[in-house]
């Protein structure tokens, strides 16, 4: 490895540190303004929710790296939630969980087939699925939450393994799997290739259709998993479980620094992004700020994050920044 590669690794490290510091600063500011933020109960809550959000953020990130986008995960989660609850009530808890995950995978596969085999643009296909799945969820549940879950249903979402909430453990396991998959398997490499230059990937013999399909299946599966955990947490199946889920997931990925153009990205990015968003959401809740303002804030955060990503790649902007930086340094040296 030459000095240039070290420079690349160094800038990757800088990105990582940059995002972590944003998270740290945010948390510190919040703890100062609202000390309740630091209460164990609240912290556990935040971690739990960010764990759930990060599950779908992984799925979304995988799809985005492969050059696509998945707008439907909110509705997929809704269907999964409803079915999980119904099956858990009638057949059993574990079949219920399994059903939720499989439903997610199935709907994700449908997305994948529409996009890879029928060549529908990802935006349109997943948007269609968004509407379609929401309808199904509402129909099955007749618009009402499904309650009276059997004993022990809530363990997954609210329970602990020792001191650690279970959702976090699940999230960590998925994180490790996702990391291994993206960086250590051919599938991961092919995803980066397809997202970077689809035509060249095709001509190099990569089965673009198959891997695209797989990416959406995974995204759906993770949405199903997140739904299962969330449903378990609130102990009821809901058809409006998390309507803003895809946007939160995309936001998490973007804030974490994932490039929306595809072909780029590391797995820690959606995780950190999910944490930042969860912390931000939580903070705004604690401060009793209206949820509409919350949306404005989150929207602003996304815009800033994505603009920063673009600006970083812009040569003249970076030159300006380095000039200012050097100027300040020389000023400091003189004094």
């Amino acid at each position, binding site marked *: 490895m030459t000095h240039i590669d070290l420079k*690349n690794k160094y800038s990757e490290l800088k990105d990582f540190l940059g995002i972590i510091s944003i998270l740290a600063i945010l948390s510190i500011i919040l703890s100062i303004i609202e000390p309740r933020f630091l209460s164990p109960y609240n912290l556990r809550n935040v971690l739990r929710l960010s764990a759930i959000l990060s599950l779908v953020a992984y799925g979304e990130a995988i799809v985005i790296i492969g050059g696509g986008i998945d707008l439907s995960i909110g509705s997929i989660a809704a269907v999964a939630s409803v079915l999980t609850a119904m099956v858990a009530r009638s057949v059993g808890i574990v079949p219920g969980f399994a059903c939720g995950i499989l439903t997610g995978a199935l709907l994700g596969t449908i997305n994948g087939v529409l996009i890879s085999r029928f060549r529908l643009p990802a935006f349109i296909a997943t948007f269609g699925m968004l509407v379609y799945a929401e309808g199904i969820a509402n129909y099955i549940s007749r618009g009402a939450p499904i309650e009276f879950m059997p004993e022990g249903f809530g363990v997954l979402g609210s329970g602990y393994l020792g001191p650690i909430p279970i959702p976090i453990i699940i999230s960590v396991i998925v994180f490790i799997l996702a990391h*291994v998959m993206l960086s250590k398997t*051919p599938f991961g490499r092919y995803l980066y290739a397809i997202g*970077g230059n689809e035509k*060249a990937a095709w*001509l190099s013999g990569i*089965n673009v259709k198959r891997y695209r399909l797989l990416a959406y299946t995974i995204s759906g599966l993770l949405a199903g998993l997140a739904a299962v955990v969330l449903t378990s947490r609130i102990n009821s199946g809901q058809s409006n479980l998390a309507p803003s889920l895809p946007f939160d997931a995309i936001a998490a990925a973007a804030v974490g620094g994932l490039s929306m153009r595809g*072909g780029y990205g590391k797995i820690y990015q959606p995780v950190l992004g999910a944490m930042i968003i969860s912390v931000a959401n939580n903070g705004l809740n604690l401060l009793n700020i209206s949820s509409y303002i919350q949306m404005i804030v989150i929207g602003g955060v996304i815009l800033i994050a994505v603009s920063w990503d673009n600006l970083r790649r812009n040569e003249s902007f970076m030159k300006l920044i380095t000039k200012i930086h050097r100027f300040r340094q020389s000023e400091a040296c003189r004094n």
Partner: protein
Amino acid sequence: MRGITKRFPGVRALKSVDFDLQTGEVHVLLGENGAGKSTLIKILSGAYQLDDGEIFIDGSPVRINNPHHASALGISTIYQETNLVPSLSVAENIFLGRLPRIPFLGVVKNKKIVGDSKDILAQLGVHIPTDALVGFLSIAQKQLVEIAKAVSQKTKILIMDEPTSALTAHEIDNLFRLVRKLRANGTGIIYISHRFEEFNEIGDRITVMRDGKKIDTVSVANTSDNELIQMMIGRRLDEKFPKRAVTIGEEVLKVTNLSVNGIFNKINLNLHKGEILGVMGVVGSGSEAIAHAVAGGLQVDFGEKYLNGVKVEIKSPQDAIKHHIGLLTEDRKSLGLMLKLSVRENITLASLDQINRLGFLSLAKEEHISNQYIKKLNILTPSGETITENLSGGNQQKVVIAKWLCRKINILLCVEPTRGVDIGAKVEIYSLLNKLVAEGASVIIFSSDRDEIIGMCDRIIVIRKGEIVAEVPREKFSREEISSYAFGEMYRKQIQAS
């Protein structure tokens, strides 16, 4: 331009280069790929920012911040990669950014742009309808539209980066006629080309660059080709086409009746083991499409393919690779490489399932293999982890070749293998191909460069307008004959006249 320096991550592209242009001259910029010519003109055209140095126009210092600023200063550029909008018409592209509007209403004066475009195209002798969508034009036609666009902007400094690489002889003549007219009008033209016969014909002065430095500026008339080559590569070039004798074995590939409606018709060809077959055809004759069809990238309407006598179905690049056929495309940047990934990742891209056991990538193994190929093919790169984007054209091409070698293909189809590649790297690529066939593989070169085809191939098939018009074995090669087959009657008359 004085003392121009430019740095990219890991590479110093330009080291204190001086360059000047007089009004009314054609100044040729010559150098191997990676010598820095493209970088220099990109600085002049505002696409890159210089790190050090100064630029003066008409004696006054300027800073060129972006391409828009450059064209306001009277600098126009025609790049190798066309900068047109495929979904807009020819007329709209010519006036891109300067669409004349009716004041107050803000409506585009359609008649004006169509009329003006028609005038310019007529001046150039180009027959493209002004309402044609650029996306449907061939590469050659797109280049002509680019030239029309630059001409219409009434430039003082016109930069042309390899403008003729995809033009026919007739179109090149037209272009030169226009260049002479512009020169007579006082426009200064910077002309980048690898083709010696071209700048001998149209150039006034030549600046030779090598490794990011200016070597010398000389006048075209007083300098011989050999002197120029020596300046370019720093050593004598005795053999441009290293050709060795290889025993040719049995037939390995045969296609019959290959047809794609509207592109080519009833193509029959066969390839033998150890043979280099040449398919000569100008841009637009269908030869590139044939290559893609044989390699599974293009769906055929009719035709059969046989490998070693056995009929096979090759309907996708994956099928082709399974049968050990590789395709070296004509456009490495958009079709052959992942520019944002490293050299190592590109080399191993088509072979991941073979390199890695148990479904997991082994970085160490990949590095080992890719370093082998970097050494074997003499790819000039700081390391295997360098992002492929930062390599020069010739070295990028070598990376694509390495990708196929890594997959151990037996039949390599090359389309325009040395387009946009400098002389030094060209020779290396030719030697590589020779080595390949010496080791038992077979190669088909699809090219419009007749010197290349004649120099490298054992047998030539000539394609014109989608059909085979001649098949010539090596003993019977003659430049003029082959060109006349490829270009048709018109060319034969031209060479008879000259």
